[in-house]
């Protein structure tokens, strides 16, 4: 309940008082008061109770602060509190755009969004991102200072499409932090869940934005494979070896429906295409029945929008299934990805298939050096072992 209500309080209070610190503290005080006051039973309208209490806390704080500074005392105490003239959801959307503003460094956007929009504590964010609490606290403080000092607006921007891409990028980073974390854990479920929640929120707030819909579909379809992706020994299981009965059928159904709706709208964007790629993968009852031709077309479309070497690498993996590993190897050999573990992992696999075992061994070794996710390292190490000892 508080997990959902706290961010809504913060959004509304920020809209009203244009002060993130005040909003954060008043919302937290209201939740604390609720915890003790609700011991005897929930009020009739808990959300309304919290909002009224948080607003009172905010006004108390403003009065206390203004007493210290007589100059502002009259202005603040005398001012009537503006009544909300719009939905909480509008404030939430404004808050999201403020937290994901391009004038803030990407890692700052991430921390601020998780704090203000998701309502995670600094400690939870630090644990999720494997960064010290002090560093997360500092990022959030710096962000608040800049928002106030430089007047980063609490508004839905005019150049919506560009700025929405920034918001979606933040959410996708949160998802990937959960899905492919560094450090000791194979998966960090809480961050993946949080990214799904944020994607749902943005999609609900902007139902007409197809890229937001695409991102929701993408994270649902990727996350649906979670249970099959790591085995009991904590080793990554690649798509060809996954037990597809472990996939989350409800999430797949929801993701597939979202992708179909995107396709029907026919305005493809990067997230929609990546979602469609995942939809093709998850539509196949067996790996051998994957529609590789459809995948190749989708990767081609994605490459046209995002001509990046990583997209070319993924497309080349599809080429291997369509036209064989030799052709695929030729496609990836010149890609400038020598510091990317997945490049060496993909190359190793292709080299193994064409029988260039010594080179495959070197490529696996390089991939292991570069990979940071433990499940992936275990998987690559086993593949390397499967090649047998150097003859």
């Amino acid at each position, binding site marked *: 309940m508080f997990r959902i209500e706290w961010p809504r309080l913060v959004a509304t209070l920020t809209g009203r008082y244009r002060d993130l610190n005040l909003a954060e503290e008043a919302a937290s005080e209201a939740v604390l008061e609720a915890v003790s006051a609700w011991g005897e039973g929930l009020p009739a309208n808990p959300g309304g109770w919290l909002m009224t209490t948080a607003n009172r806390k905010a006004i108390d704080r403003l009065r206390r602060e203004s007493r210290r500074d007589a100059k502002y005392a009259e202005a603040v105490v005398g001012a009537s509190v503006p009544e909300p003239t719009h939905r909480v959801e509008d404030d939430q959307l404004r808050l999201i755009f403020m937290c994901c503003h391009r004038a803030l460094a990407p890692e700052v956007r991430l921390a601020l969004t998780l704090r203000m929009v998701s309502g995670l504590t600094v400690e939870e964010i630090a644990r999720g991102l494997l960064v010290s609490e002090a560093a997360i606290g500092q990022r959030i403080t710096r962000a608040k200072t800049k928002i106030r000092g*430089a*007047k980063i607006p609490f508004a839905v921007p005019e150049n919506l499409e560009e700025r929405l891409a920034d918001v979606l990028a933040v959410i996708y980073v949160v998802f990937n932090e959960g899905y492919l974390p560094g450090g000791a854990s194979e998966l960090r479920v809480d961050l993946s869940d949080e990214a799904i929640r944020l994607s749902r929120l943005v999609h609900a707030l902007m139902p007409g934005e197809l890229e937001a819909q695409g991102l929701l579909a993408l994270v649902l379809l990727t996350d649906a494979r979670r249970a099959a992706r790591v085995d009991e020994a904590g080793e990554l299981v690649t798509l060809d070896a996954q037990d597809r009965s472990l996939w989350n059928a409800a999430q797949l159904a929801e993701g597939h429906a979202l992708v179909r709706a995107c396709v029907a709208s026919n305005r493809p964007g990067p997230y929609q295409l990546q979602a469609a790629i995942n939809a093709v993968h998850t539509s196949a009852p067996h790996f051998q029945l994957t529609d590789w031709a459809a995948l190749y077309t989708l990767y081609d479309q994605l490459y046209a929008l995002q001509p990046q070497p990583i997209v070319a690498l993924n497309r080349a993996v599809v080429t291997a299934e369509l036209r064989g590993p030799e052709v695929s190897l030729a496609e990836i050999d010149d890609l400038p990805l020598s510091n990317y573990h997945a490049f060496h992992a993909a190359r190793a696999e292709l080299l193994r298939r064409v029988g260039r075992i010594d080179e495959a061994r070197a490529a696996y070794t390089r991939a292991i050096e570069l990979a940071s996710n433990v499940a992936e390292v275990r998987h690559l190490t086993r593949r390397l072992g499967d090649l047998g000892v150097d003859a």
Partner: protein
Amino acid sequence: MAQYLLSVHGTDSDFDPPAGKFGAYATEQEALAAMAATGAFNDRLIARGHFVFAGGLRSASSATVVDGTGERPVFTDGPYLETKEWLGGFWIIDAPDLDAALELATEGSRACGGKVEVRPFAG
């Protein structure tokens, strides 16, 4: 409304080039075009009510640092910061928020052909 400093940084020879050189620009033509574009940008700032002040500076080597905190003032030849790049020119603008300031800075950057730092004034 808030005020923002939009500043352009560069090396000394960018802003105060020796004869026959055009600073940050490859040719005289480019330099003249940038100057004209910057003038047009200033006019737009004035017309839209954003303009507070703008100016270009002489080279940092023409600066003098004055320390009046002691009993007698101390004068030092040269700029305050020891760096390779200095403030070379700036605008002070009025804008409703950072989004508006960033948009104007983008225009300014395009006009003068350099990177622009946007920094809010206090208060």
